[in-house]
């Protein structure tokens, strides 16, 4: 393999357009959050104080672990290790599941405490941003699941794993968004 093939885009260009579109939507929301926060510092600080940073940090760890698993899965298929690839994909899928469970607990807490989309601007951002992300985790898991089945059936190999790279890139995007979202919503004051 020479250097030029090393530099090629992992996965399909169409997937990358999709990923950038997703990042654009989140990016605009992040900017909206930042500007609105500047106008209502106290309201946002009070809101942030109610959030469970530990669970947020746990979920960050879980998603980064998931991304690591996906990296290992792609590395495995490049060596034609189909079974290893399936295992790593399964592990990534499991990390997504853990994330969702933790998040549901967090939501339950918030709803029990009487917070919802309408409470105030901070919670509007909190619920919409985390929920949009939540939906992306689900979509990412569907993609991972689809790839797992296809890998198992021998659909990918060292020579042909273009689709796997596309899906892996999407999963990294889901992770990346959370890595920005967590400090922005939970930590930064």
């Amino acid at each position, binding site marked *: 393999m020479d250097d030029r093939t090393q530099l090629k885009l992992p996965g399909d260009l*169409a997937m990358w*357009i999709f990923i950038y*579109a*997703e990042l654009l*939507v989140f990016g*605009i929301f992040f900017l909206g959050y930042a500007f609105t926060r500047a106008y209502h510092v106290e309201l946002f600080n009070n809101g942030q104080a109610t959030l469970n940073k530990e669970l947020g940090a746990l979920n960050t760890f879980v998603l980064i672990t998931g991304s690591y698993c996906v990296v290992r899965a792609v590395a495995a298929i490049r060596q034609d290790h189909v079974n290893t690839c399936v295992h790593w994909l399964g592990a990534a899928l499991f990390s997504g599941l853990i994330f969702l469970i933790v998040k549901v607990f967090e939501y339950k807490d918030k709803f029990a405490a009487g917070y919802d989309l309408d409470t105030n601007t901070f919670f*509007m951002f909190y619920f*919409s941003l985390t929920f949009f992300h939540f939906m992306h985790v689900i979509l990412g898991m569907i993609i991972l699941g689809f790839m797992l089945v296809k890998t198992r059936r021998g659909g990918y190999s060292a020579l042909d794993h273009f689709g796997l790279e596309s899906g892996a890139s999407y999963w990294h995007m889901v992770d990346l968004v959370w890595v920005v979202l967590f400090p922005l919503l939970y930590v930064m004051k």
Partner: protein
Amino acid sequence: MQYKSQSVAKPYFIAAIGLFIGQILFGLVMGLQYVWGDFLFPAIPFNVARMVHTNLLIVWLLFGFMGAAYYLIPEEAERELESPALAMLMFWIFLVAGALTVLGYLLVPYAGLAKLTFNSLLPTMGREFLEQPTITKIGIVIVALSFLYNVGMTVLKGRKTVVNLVLMTGLVGLAVMFLFSFYNPDNLVKDKFYWWWVVHLWVEGVWELILGAILAYVLIKTTGVDREVVEKWLYVIIAMTLITGIIGTGHHYFWIGTPEYWQWFGSVFSALEPIPFFMMTVFAFNMVNKRRREHPNKAAVLWALGTGVMAFLGAGVWGFLHTLAPVNYYTHGTQITAAHAHMSFYGAYVMIVLTIISYAMPLLRGRAAANSNKAQVVEMWSFWLMTISIVFLTLFLTAAGILQVYLQRVADVPLPFMVVQDKIVLFYWLREIAGLVFFIGLMIYVWSFFVKGEETKTA
């Protein structure tokens, strides 16, 4: 034409063009009524002219979409249409029901029409764009179901391509969203909320899938570019359409009594709605640049490229202009909206229907590939006349809108609505002139079908 049953598309296309002429005539009447208040009063009051203008537009576009589906689905599925007879029956039912409805609008006072059609049994009338009597709405559902059965079975039994699957998704979505026109709650907020599920999710949702599929089909046929490439574009475009368009419905929920978060959702998502339209433009030009053949139907290619550009300008740019909540706070319901409506409907949906007609009609009329050069030149003249006049019409309405917003809502001493209307009358006159030029363009378009001449050889 590869399959005999594709020929059922022909009457649909002819009816579409006929109703298009009617739509523009009523548009001209209304345009004149803006500046000459009692023109044709009491025979055709403004509200009736407006109802006919908008309803005819929707109906003729539906005729166009159905014609497009009947033409391209057999070819994509590689088999004859499930039932050409059913398609013809539905054509006549739809045409007669449409004609009776319009006659009802024109001849009977609206309240009388409601009574005559037993609206009280299931009240659905009286809402903008959904003015049709309940019985007409039921007729539309029957026609839509038979149509979906007909094309659906053809696809199911035949070859499944991305083009016909996207088209089917759009058409099914169109039928499903229309069902919300039967939901008419007393609560005005809820009424408006679901009303947009028909209106917005049609034009900024499922119709865009139909547009994308037809455009992709015509580009595959005229450029000879690999289906795989076209399909990939189509996937990305419809994904973007749905991501931005569905939650983008929120840009109609700013001031109707819905929770405040809609101002954020609506602004952010709808601000991205221009992206799929921009991608469509890039897509169309890209495919034509990479073409592997010179298709003799130059007019169809022109319409296809025009659709990309004008849809992006009209729907994308002019939509973005007033989609952010802080801007819309001032522009809501002014001539800015009218400007956007005219260029987006023309650029996206009128032009895509004319694209498929331009591509398919010569084949339906037994030509080998395209009309004579002479006929195509006439058709291209009509393209430029209609397109340029709609651009001017839009610019005049935009100017009127900006003045209106300023004088009525922003100025230190805001003026009453009617006073402002008097002050922007010049732009209404200019708009009417642009409308007349558009009508001339349309007449030339019709004329192009009757221009004879030597057929261009297939390349």
